[in-house]
């Protein structure tokens, strides 16, 4: 995979930060020389045999390096996997998401799998930190960013986070298998196949070779042979790379272990705001853990069947990107739509997530306007009925239809009455209100399908309205939002208007641009030239005659989002690298002090050994580091929008 200078720099920094210099060295060499056999790799990296073998083994375990043994010359070639390296930065976000959806224990499993690269189910069974639901006390708070902070030390001695001496007070066997199954059925974990250790190109070539040597294909000729080989290659590839566990593990088309956030709310006072309850997922988790993880018992007996013991699992980043992208869509809705509508949208997206395996079909970033449209599977509103908190007030979010419009509409009254019912906490009425609620859900989704949201698309299937998402359109919307944010903060809202006009109308000369954008000459020219200097707009010259005199030339301004995205993406990589490098600088400044805090006798007993000033210094350092890491994560959000969604 060809990567730009800054992307490579960033990946190397991430590996160094997570795994240490040895890995970073091997990675850099492989990036620089691409594919290398062992001897060449040794020559270029100037490492000893021992170091290199150790390093490579561990890197293969973490999928940072692909290897491929050629049948022709019996050489093993190594190749770097920058994608896996890049995803290191997203680990915090992923753990947060898993914790939010499936609880703290699931997040812990996820963290362990991430930490190990891949792991077999039997190995996971033996790990002490996964034995009990309660965390060992030393790591009371799992900082999502801790993963990236952890320094190289931890790689060698395996799972450090468990302090072996810690005996759990109540030894309740943790629902490891059930949770694993839940993770797998959501698609967050996938099986490791032999082919996943080889680079995509190698896999393709090998599959092609196998396909062309098949006797059936050999008999064919010309175009038909080619077609047959192509088809076989694709199916072989699919078969070899198929690692998705979700289909086999789903129950009634739904993954297991879905946490229903409203499940216990029914017992309490119903007027309690549901929204706050949703937020709870991040904050006050500690107390509810036991309760929340109980789902495994109260579902069905299915979950007691253990996972296949020999299965090796790893994190499925593609699927997690889908989940993270859906979160971004929800935040788009949150900006403008009423809260109830956002909740409805969230549950629609959740449904769609279950049958979407990846964000895009192709790996390369689609060009603006050539991306086509990719729609999700349509979901009927009735399916959402069960997912949505039955006590949530769906009708109160809308104004009565007949209040100011002369249009007499019988349906206009219904939501109003229904709203009153909702207030009476009458759970029994829900069944007879089922159709009304479905109608209301449709209303919410319908609102989202209109301008300015355009977040859903309605299709008529089997005689009923079903809802789907136009992934590409929304990805474009996210992309433009990010760009517009940058333009607004740099050049002001005048520039924003100019950019939107140019984007909507294509290439324009100054006169026409002024007419549409209603801007005085002076402002317009200033904005355009500063944006041109920043690389956001470009000027095209169209000479009227061969002499190319300026007076006889038409000048057209235009805005090319693809170009801008390309350069902004590079800038973002660079900013991420610089921020990570700055962390190092800051750490160096406090080197002596930090080494003291990390001493084994001080660590964990900071209050005893450190003075007040030192404690404050430590707190400041932690804040600073958190800020910088948080910034890297924010920058990664942009990369995700530009590159992955």
């Amino acid at each position, binding site marked *: 995979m060809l990567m730009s200078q800054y992307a490579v720099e960033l990946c190397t920094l991430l590996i160094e930060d997570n795994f240490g210099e040895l890995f970073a060295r091997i990675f850099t060499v492989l990036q620089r020389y691409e594919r290398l056999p062992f001897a060449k790799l040794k020559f270029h990296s100037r490492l000893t045999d021992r170091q290199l073998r150790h390093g490579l083994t561990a890197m293969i375990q973490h999928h940072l390096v692909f290897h491929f043994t050629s049948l022709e010359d019996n050489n093993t070639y190594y190749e770097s996997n920058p994608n896996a390296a890049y995803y290191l930065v997203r680990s915090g976000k992923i753990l947060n998401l898993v914790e939010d959806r499936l609880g703290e224990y699931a997040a812990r499993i996820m963290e362990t799998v991430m930490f190990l690269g891949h792991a077999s189910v039997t190995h996971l069974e033996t790990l002490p930190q996964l034995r009990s639901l309660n965390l060992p006390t030393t790591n009371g708070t799992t900082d999502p960013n801790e993963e990236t902070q952890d320094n190289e030390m931890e790689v060698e001695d395996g799972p450090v986070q468990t302090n072996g001496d810690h005996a759990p007070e109540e030894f309740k066997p943790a629902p490891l298998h059930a949770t694993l199954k839940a993770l797998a059925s959501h698609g967050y974990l996938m099986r490791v196949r032999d082919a996943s250790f080889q680079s995509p190109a190698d896999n393709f070539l090998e599959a092609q070779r196998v396909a062309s040597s098949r006797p059936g294909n050999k008999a064919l000729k010309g175009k038909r042979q080619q077609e047959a080989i192509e088809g076989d290659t694709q199916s072989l590839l699919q078969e070899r790379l198929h690692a998705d566990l979700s289909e086999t593990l789903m129950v009634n088309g739904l993954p297991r272990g879905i946490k229903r956030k409203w499940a216990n709310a029914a017992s309490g006072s119903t007027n309690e*705001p549901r*929204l706050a309850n949703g937020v709870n997922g991040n904050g006050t988790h500690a107390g509810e853990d036991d309760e929340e993880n109980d789902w495994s018992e109260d579902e069905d007996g299915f979950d007691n069947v253990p996972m296949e013991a020999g299965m090796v699992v790893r994190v499925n980043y593609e699927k997690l990107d889908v989940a993270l992208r859906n979160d971004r869509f929800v935040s788009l809705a949150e900006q403008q*739509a*009423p*809260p109830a509508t956002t909740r409805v949208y969230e549950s629609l997206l959740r449904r769609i997530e279950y049958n979407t395996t990846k964000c895009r079909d192709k790996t390369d970033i689609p060009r603006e306007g050539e991306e086509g449209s990719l729609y999700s599977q349509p979901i009927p509103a009735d399916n959402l009925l069960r997912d949505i908190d039955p006590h949530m*007030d769906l009708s*109160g*979010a*809308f*104004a009565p*239809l007949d*209040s*100011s419009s002369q*249009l007499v509409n019988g349906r*206009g009254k219904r*939501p109003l009455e229904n709203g*009153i019912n909702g*207030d009476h906490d009458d759970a029994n009425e829900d069944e007879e209100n089922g159709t009304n609620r479905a109608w209301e859900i449709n*209303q919410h989704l319908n*609102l989202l*399908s*209109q*301008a*300015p949201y355009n977040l859903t698309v309605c299709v008529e299937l089997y005689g009923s309205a079903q809802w789907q998402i136009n992934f590409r359109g929304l990805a474009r919307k996210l992309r433009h939002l*990010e760009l*517009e*944010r*940058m333009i*607004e*903060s*740099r050049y*002001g*809202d005048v520039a*924003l*208007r100019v950019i*939107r*006009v140019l984007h909507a109308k294509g290439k324009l000369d100054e006169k026409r641009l002024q007419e*549409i*954008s*209603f*801007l*005085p000459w002076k402002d317009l020219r200033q904005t355009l030239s500063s944006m041109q200097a920043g690389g956001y707009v470009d000027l095209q010259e169209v000479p009227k005659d061969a002499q190319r005199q300026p007076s006889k030339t038409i000048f057209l301004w235009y805005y090319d989002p693809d170009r801008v995205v390309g350069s902004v993406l590079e*800038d*973002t990589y*660079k*900013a991420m690298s*610089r*921020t990570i*490098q*700055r962390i190092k*600088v800051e750490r160096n400044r406090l080197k002596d002090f930090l080494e003291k805090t990390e001493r084994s006798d001080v660590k964990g007993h900071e209050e005893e050994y450190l003075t007040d000033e030192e404690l404050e210094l430590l707190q*400041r350092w932690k*804040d*600073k580091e958190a*800020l910088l890491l948080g*910034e890297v994560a*924010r*920058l990664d*959000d*942009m990369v995700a929008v530009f590159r992955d969604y």
Partner: protein
Amino acid sequence: MAAAGSSVKELASQLYDACADQFSTDHTFYQQDLLSLGVIPNDDLSLLLECAQSLVNQKLFRLLEAQNKRLVWRLVGREDAEKLKNLTGDEGLVFTVIHSSGRSGVWVRTIQSRTNLHKSILDRCLKALEGKNYIKTVHNVKHPTKKMYMLAGLAPGEDVTGGAWFTDGVLDAHFINTVAGFIEYTVSRKSWYEVPADHGRTAKRLKTATGKADINDPAEKTYLPYPPAYTGYPTAEDITRAVNKSAITPVQLGEESIVQLLQMLCFDRKLVELSNGKYYKSLKNPALVKAAQARKPADGEEPQAAIDLGKNGMTESPCGPCPSFALCTPGGAISPETCEYFDPWFEKVLGF
């Protein structure tokens, strides 16, 4: 012959009135047209000639030559004829050229080429005409540097002034902002439902939807969006009517001008078009619109204050706005190690 002379004059005046009655002012009259009016008895050609000549002398007729070398006439209004009578030959020529340009005005150079007058003579004529208050200079938005003239009594056309949004050829930003603000607020009022505050039941329902909203400030109004089937959003026609009814505009604005402005508002993401531009809906509810507009004056000094879209990684990080970001390399003159933007950023964000 005096009687004959006066009868010719009367007849000529009758002929003029008949022409003005039955034809439009820019009609070209051939001989047949004049005869067919039936004013000249017996189709007497010599009498017609006399009448026409008399009218031309009075400047009520203008003599022209058609393509096939035939003589044709055109009517001149009585007022203009009155003016023309007071003018010298050259001045009359210039006046006619300017008159023919109507509401779009005519460039000085064009007058010169059409009249074939020397520049100094032309200047004198123009000065004289301007002194008599027959013509005026106009400012053309499309050609701000060209000196253009038109009749004093006419208002410049849309293409000359640039439409309703220009004052003296300059885009009137203040006026535009006022009208735009008014439109946004008006549309907003119609695209959000204001929950009646005194209504006990609705207030209770609100509490479940937004938490403890109504405890904070009872005066604060709550707005709800209309359901998707709602069709009460204003159209361009409604908005034009509302703008013209309000006291903010001294002139009546046409629907075209308003649509132009509505499009601008759409580009600003203040309004959106619904049903292919039939209706307009405001994105913010009236309270937010008011708040945003109240903030506007302060914005003049500090344009950075209003960020509507929110932030992202690049706008927050010190690297985003860094002017020498392109030069930044580890170990270089500008490097993450020596960067001077990080420390102020820590101070700003963390407060130490």
